[in-house]
């Protein structure tokens, strides 16, 4: 059965947002794009260790969500967390320094690229699907404290859907009516496994949500305006009825699962085709059509984003390492017993 893409009046959204805000969205996406490219290059020089999961290609989804709903919610995602951290206020400098393991890093060098945090970002999680119960816990907190104008937004990949944690969380969220927006970013590949070989039903939200007694929707994850409009609606609905919502955002990652992944499970042609729907390109075209952007301005914005990323690299390179004497400190939070 074919998916029904959530209906959004894109033109209306465009006008509602206005030139400044849409350009702001483009800037954010360009920052994410350039940041990920430069960080990945540093990884290939051996300056960043461990794993590196790039968000390249998926920028529209989280940019739209944060802009539509505002930072003042509880946010959570998987190890593919660099974009969300940037969107939620972590500076490029501090994120890059975290990648480099320096004391000036986002988590003082203790987390690494999979574990980034801000005041409202609960992480960055390494275990696939492990973040979903945490997200419903955050939603539970909001409900418990009577906070009705905020929600918990949880991002996960298609590969996480088979996890028990997903199932248990969706059941609890619907059962207890928790204000949790769960967004499955379906980039069609769980590492090297096609989603059709991992999940028994084709439409991850539309087919699964009814089984939990919640609503499910499908979004075109490459289209910023579409996503923005959808998230606006979801946000309003959740504030009204405090019901959880399950969303599948169809997207593509232009890189492998992580830097180590040569991506041999898909053809170069298919990747090239997907890159034809690059969200940045799509939004650029949208803006050019209404005369809010020209090539020169775009290049300037792109260059500016690259400069920010390069400056972050320099900052990280020059930052001090954590003091070894502090290794065993702060395993526990201070008590006030």
């Amino acid at each position, binding site marked *: 059965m074919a998916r029904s893409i959530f209906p959004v009046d894109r033109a209306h959204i465009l006008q509602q947002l206005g030139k400044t805000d849409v350009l702001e969205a483009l800037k954010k996406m360009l920052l994410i794009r350039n940041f990920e490219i430069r960080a990945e290059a540093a990884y290939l020089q051996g300056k960043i260790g461990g794993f590196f999961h790039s968000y390249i290609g998926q920028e529209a989804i989280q940019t739209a969500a944060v802009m539509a709903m505002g930072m003042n919610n509880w946010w959570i995602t998987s190890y593919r967390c660099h974009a969300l951290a940037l969107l939620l206020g972590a500076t490029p400098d501090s994120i890059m320094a975290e990648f480099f393991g320096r004391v000036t890093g986002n988590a003082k060098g203790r987390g690494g690229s999979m574990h980034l945090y801000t005041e409202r970002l609960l992480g960055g999680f390494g275990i696939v699907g492990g973040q979903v119960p945490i997200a419903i816990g955050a939603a539970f907190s909001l409900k418990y404290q009577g906070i009705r104008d905020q929600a918990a937004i949880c991002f996960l990949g298609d590969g996480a859907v088979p996890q028990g944690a997903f199932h248990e969380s969706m059941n609890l969220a619907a059962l207890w009516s928790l204000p949790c927006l769960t967004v499955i970013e379906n980039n069609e590949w769980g590492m090297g496994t096609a989603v059709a070989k991992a999940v028994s039903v084709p439409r991850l939200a539309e087919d699964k949500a009814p089984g939990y007694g919640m609503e499910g929707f499908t979004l075109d994850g490459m289209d910023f305006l579409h996503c923005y409009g959808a998230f606006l609606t979801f946000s309003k609905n959740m504030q009204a009825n405090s019901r959880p919502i399950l969303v599948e955002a169809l997207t593509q990652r232009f890189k492998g699962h992580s830097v*180590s992944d040569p991506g041999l499970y898909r053809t170069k042609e298919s990747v090239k085709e997907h890159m034809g729907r690059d969200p940045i390109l799509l939004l650029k075209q949208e803006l050019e059509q209404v005369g809010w952007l020209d090539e020169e301005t775009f290049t300037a914005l792109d260059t500016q984003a690259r400069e920010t990323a390069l400056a972050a690299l320099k900052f990280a390179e020059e930052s001090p390492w954590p003091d070894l004497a502090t290794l065993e400190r702060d395993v526990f939070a201070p008590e006030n017993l």
Partner: protein
Amino acid sequence: MTFIVTMPKLSPTMETGTIAKWHKKEGDQVAAGDLLLEVSTDKATVEHNALDPGYLRKILVQEGQEAAVNQPIALFTEKVDEPVSVPEETAHPQTGAPKPSQEASAPAAATPPPPPVEVKGERLLISPLARKLAKEQGINTTQIKGTGPGGRIVSRDLAQKGEMKTQEIALTPMRKVISQRLQQAKSTIPHFYVEQTIQADALVDFREQLSHLGTKVSYNDCVVKASALALREHPQVNSGFNASNQTLIQFGSIDISVAVSLPEGLITPIVFQADKKELQQISTEVRTLAVKAKENKLEPREFQGGSFTISNLGMFGITRFSAIINAPQACILAVGGIIDTPIIKNGAIVPGKVMTLTLSCDHRVVDGVAGAKFLKTLQNLLENPAHLLVTHV
């Protein structure tokens, strides 16, 4: 501006890669994202795209060649017509090694072991191993200074006492002989012992007088002469036993074996016909023989034989002792030191000097009465030392 492209690290464990194929050649314009080259790693052949746009000016590592991760493999310029200037980084590539922290930090070390519980006075600090070894070796642990943590006595502290190792050492030839002969003598000869304490004041006086006359003799020399004279009167004691023949040996001459202590054991050079020699001569001979003994220069005929042995520990202040018979002789005389002691003279207790003699006898040859009589004669001679100067031919 020139920029360098380096060998990328395509897997966490990759250290070198081989250029499988260049997809651009020198002079080409390259856009960001263009496929630039393929690299063979230990795991796979992987494509690598250009990061930044520019013009490929120089390929530094050719197809089929290997390069280390971060090693420069190509030079690019941003514009087509600029000269290629090799930036300093090619000469000194950044390795990304950690710089020391700007805050003072202690070097990373294993967590130091926590200090042991402070031990109060009464408990001896000694390891179980050292305790066991000390017990085995009979060492008093309270006298050992411990060099382990907190002053604990550990096994190496026992080794420094020099008694650490129990060893089995092969016997020297002399030791072997001594061991064999004395074991034989002690286990096969029926020893009995007769003891006589003599008043030595006269002897002390005698020796002193002689010394004033320029004649130096030792107490042992006197005992040798006196024994030789006493043996003349008691030839039964100047005898021996032939164990193989089961016969009694009656020696034809009085040849006194004198025990001499050596670092490696002891030896008994002989004063032949001691009864016929003057005291002075005996003294000289014994001295000469002793020197020869200590220099290992005694000939067999000088220490093999003899009819009676004298062993003296008096110079160490020994009160008395019993010696093992020097087979095939029948008797051996053990001489103690001259000791100040209260004696009874004319019914009163007065200070005196005494010397204790102990005669070991082979009961197969010499009976108690014979031994006793010999000793009484010897006593008389030593208590009246003028006898020692009488020449006997």
